[in-house]
């Protein structure tokens, strides 16, 4: 007997739930040969606004967890992704037309990247923070703290690029609103399902599928967003206008890359460092 297709509705991921776009709009995700892959929710500015609300709501709880616990939660995400390894490989092959070997390389690298950043959760403070020698009777200490709500335009690399921008933002205690790759949105939806079934609290990561050029300006000018990561913006004019919009409330901006990024390369602490604020404490000491 032939079995009917179980067709999937790809939805947004906001506040731990999977809503359709508030606008009711959809767009088609295509495979490497231009064939139909699935209908995706086309996020609107109101979805972006809802996502920022969810991220803000989650920030208090997430940022005050112990770094050790955040590391465990992010590692748990890697565990769940490992369980979906075959699905990710299949989706990368379909979306990008990669061969099996190459797709496997990217998926493994993505899972390993999450583990790598999870490991840094309780270590980056020691590296980025400092006891400062000052000329006076003070114990002077600098320590990195999360920036807040981060709006991210994800790079088009469907999985590795996506986790490479999300993981460093959340291990330091930020919460994020990500606009997934417009070209390859399906793996982002699968990643959101991994997040929903790991121990990541709802709202820590919110994933929107749709057009960055439409949604990003609203996030860039949003007064309750604290940082803007333009990793996936390849149009210099759009990048410039987003930076201008972000200046209104002095958002921290990670600028758009000027040359193609090799996401397979061993990462540095740059992305962790880019989304923290250094707090310096002067404590009087007896001389």
């Amino acid at each position, binding site marked *: 007997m032939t079995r009917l297709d179980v067709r999937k509705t790809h939805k947004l991921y906001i506040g731990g739930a999977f809503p359709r776009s508030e606008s009711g709009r959809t767009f088609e995700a295509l495979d490497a040969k231009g064939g139909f892959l699935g209908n995706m929710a086309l996020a609107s500015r109101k979805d972006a*606004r809802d996502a*920022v609300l969810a991220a*803000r709501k989650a920030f208090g709880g997430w940022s005050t967890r112990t770094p050790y616990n955040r590391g465990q939660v992010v590692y748990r995400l890697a565990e769940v992704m490992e369980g979906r390894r075959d699905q990710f490989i299949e989706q990368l092959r379909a979306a990008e037309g990669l061969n099996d070997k190459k797709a496997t390389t990217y998926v493994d690298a993505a899972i390993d990247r999450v583990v790598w950043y999870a490991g840094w959760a309780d270590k980056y403070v020691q590296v980025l923070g400092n006891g400062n020698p000052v000329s006076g009777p003070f114990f002077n200490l600098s320590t990195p703290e999360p920036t807040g709500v981060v709006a991210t335009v994800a790079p088009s690399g469907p999985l590795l690029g996506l986790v490479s921008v999300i993981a460093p933002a959340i291990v330091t205690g930020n919460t994020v609103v990500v606009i997934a790759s417009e070209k390859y949105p399906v793996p982002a939806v699968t990643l959101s399902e991994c997040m929903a079934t790991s121990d990541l609290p709802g709202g820590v990561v919110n994933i929107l599928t749709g057009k960055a050029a439409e949604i990003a300006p*609203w996030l860039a*000018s*949003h*007064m*309750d*967003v604290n940082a803007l990561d333009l990793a996936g913006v390849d149009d210099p004019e759009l990048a410039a206008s987003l930076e201008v*919009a972000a200046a*209104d409330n002095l958002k921290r901006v990670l600028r758009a890359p000027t040359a193609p990024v090799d996401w397979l390369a061993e990462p540095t602490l740059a992305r962790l460092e880019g989304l923290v604020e250094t707090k310096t404490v002067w404590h009087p000491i007896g001389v």
Partner: protein
Amino acid sequence: MTGATASLRKTLGGLPGVDQVGLEARAAGLGTRSIKTTAKAWAIDLAISMVDLTTLEGADTPGKVRALANKAMRPDPTDPSCPSAAAVCVYPDMVKIAKDTLGDSGLHVASVATAFPSGRAALDIKLADTRDAVEAGADEIDMVIDRGAFLTGNYELVFDEIVATKEACARPDGSHAHLKVIFETGELQTYDNVRKASWLSMMAGADFIKTSTGKVQPAATLPVTLVMLEAVRDFRAETGRQVGVKPAGGIKTSKDAIKYLVMVNEIVGEDWLDPDWFRFGASSLLNDLLLQRQKIATGHYSGPDYVTLD
């Protein structure tokens, strides 16, 4: 049974039952209206001017009440075109502080009274509570009905308490504080009861009817408010006296508030689209209205950093 009692029973008994399914569908339908651009800006300003900014916590302090009163006068200090709220709503012992802070701004002080929120006290205590608040300068009294008596069918008792409280609202100069009657619709069980309570209160002399204390869930809902709006509409048609409506509790977003305004416009018309005849009992709603107002003024989304913490 006295004549008055018989007539009250006859009126309440003669009220038609509420079609629950139809009512809820109507309320939900009105909630889908899309209000945009200039209409939205107008609705937000109107909603701000209708807010009874409320703090009814055991932890209320004079400082908090002063801060709240100042906020009611100038909800958005960065924008002089922002209207002020209608009133501040506090417990009786805070009335004087609120009154002193508001000064001659024209904003009203509303005070809850009559053993709010449960209403479980002897009548003379409830009346003393009311007189205290009026003496301290309250412009409006929010009383609670005795839900226990109402649910056991003792409508006369509820009626008499409202009449007595209304008398206690009188000032020496012959004027009287406006009386709002709170039903606590979350405890009245059925829409039929809400309709009965509305008529009973209006006949007893209520100037305003109010859904809830905000201490019981569910608090104000669209269908309940719709029943009350129909009641004040029909009451005016019958007696010529206009009574105000105040949904309170659970209205947290501008979107919710605009749904209520749409309903007021559709059910009772523009006569009630005025802070004298329709109020929102709310605390967090005002901040959301201000955020929406800022969004319209600046063209980008605002955030909680730009309104007060309260």
